[in-house]
């Protein structure tokens, strides 16, 4: 049996080589570029120079926090209602939630743009009833709206996954023992759904804070986020050194934030993501 176990281990060898070549080496290259000048000499100027973009970092994190919070507030009652509806109905509703996730997010974001424009559909409708036009596109509000729209299903699904696991008899017991709805929610549903909350927050926050498509489509050139800066430095300015320094800092901040959040919960991170 020992021999078999050793042979089985070998099947992971191709992946380990792949992982080293395409996960570890590329990350090492980010670190290398972040700490070198164009001629290859070491420097910490790239990292220090990021100070001038503190505002962009601050903006990105604020907008991402805001959209994550809005997603959580919208998704929590939705996931709860979903988990408490009849099994057959649950299936249909679940398909309806996953369906938009399968559609190109670029086209969805573009669709929002055509809705929010000054001469867009919302303003056209408002004009018919004698209101507006309201300026909505190219504002931070539009960017947050886009983030909430694109990532809401990623908050609903993990919440729903933990909520269907909550034993119904626990809720009945709480009810029998005299807890009101509010108390049941705070003392039972909320603590038991914590792993779902944490993975939902991760799945909305990370793509929000690093997005560059949403800010470009809905924020015009007015709202600049970290993602825009990274893209600009790599693609437009061909400066991988500054771009790598920005990516490195972004990655470290995100990993620290997630590390802090995961101390609230001991379940394995990956298990909740699918």
């Amino acid at each position, binding site marked *: *049996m020992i021999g078999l176990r050793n042979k*089985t281990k070998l099947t992971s060898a*191709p*992946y380990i080589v792949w992982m080293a070549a395409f*996960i570890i080496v590329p990350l090492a290259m980010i670190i290398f570029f972040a700490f070198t000048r164009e001629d290859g000499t070491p420097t910490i100027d790239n990292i220090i120079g990021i100070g001038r973009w503190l505002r962009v970092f601050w903006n990105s994190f604020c907008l991402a926090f805001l959209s994550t919070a809005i997603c959580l507030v919208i998704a929590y009652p939705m996931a709860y209602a979903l988990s408490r509806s009849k099994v057959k109905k649950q299936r*249909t509703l679940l398909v309806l939630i996953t369906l938009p996730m399968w559609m190109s997010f*670029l086209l969805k974001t573009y669709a929002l743009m055509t809705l929010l424009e000054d001469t867009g559909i919302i303003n056209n409708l408002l004009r018919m009833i004698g209101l507006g036009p309201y300026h909505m596109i190219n504002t931070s509000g539009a960017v947050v709206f886009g983030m909430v729209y694109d990532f809401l299903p990623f908050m609903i699904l993990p919440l729903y996954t933990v909520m269907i696991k909550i034993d119904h008899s626990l809720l009945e017991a709480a009810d029998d023992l005299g807890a009101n709805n509010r108390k049941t929610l705070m003392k039972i549903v909320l603590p038991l759904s914590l792993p779902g909350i944490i993975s939902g927050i991760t799945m909305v926050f990370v*793509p929000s804070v690093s997005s560059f498509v949403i800010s470009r489509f809905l924020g015009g050139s007015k709202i600049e986020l970290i993602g825009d800066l990274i893209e600009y430095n*790599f693609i437009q300015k061909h400066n991988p050194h500054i771009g790598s320094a920005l990516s490195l800092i972004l990655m470290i901040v995100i990993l620290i934030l997630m590390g802090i959040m995961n101390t609230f919960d001991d379940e394995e991170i990956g298990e909740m993501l*699918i």
Partner: protein
Amino acid sequence: MTRTKKTYTFLVFAFLYAPIVVFIFYSFNQSKSRSNFTGFSLRWYIELMQNDRIISALQNTLVVAVLSALAATLLGTAASLGITALKKAPRALIMNITYLPILNPEIVTGISLMLLFVAAGTFLGISLGFWSVLIAHITFNIPYVILNVMPKIRQTDKNIIDAAMDLGCSAPQAFFKVMLPEITPGIASGALMAFTLSFDNFVISYFTLGSDGFTTLPVNIYTSTRRGLSLEYNALFAILFVTVLIFLILMGIADNKAASKNPNSAKQIRLRN
């Protein structure tokens, strides 16, 4: 469901679907306006069929999605089997590295691979294109396959493998006849997830496809937005929407059939998940 619950659910769905419905509605517009509906026509569907740029981008995307899903499923399934057999410390190390592409922002994964491919490309004298996109997609797909397959392996009773081998199965036989059927649902959902993630991926393709003309559909959409998207893309979106909808309905029917054929197994699956 109470009335408030119903209204709330309805409002959330209205929010999720209103832009999609409007977008699809305008694919039938006679003129090229995105906010002024002048009359019904199939003009944009016909133009879409004749647009070689979009069709070839769609073909590229499908080729990359199928190949990367296949490769990731093979590598990922083999990896899951091997990783489960490892001791605790190396297993934890490998799993933590495996989570990195999932936890990292896509843009960081994208530019890190771009740095590697540009360096390797310069060294080998080749420019980025199909190969770099394919490798990048396989790389971010593998972790999702592992996360789908690994739990199934852990749920499989090790004794049945031993039993099979005691009864005279060779190791490969034991794997193909006993282990594989047990973990097939995990492999299938991993492969499906890999395909869809690859099909819709924009950020990582954008940074790894270089400038030799190779493009995928999402990148084609992004570069086209600079001049304003034509309504052909609305038509494309409508076709994709209907395709996905039909696929999901078929999956639902298959699920229900499996459940009614064997109610016990369905219940078990639900409990396990």
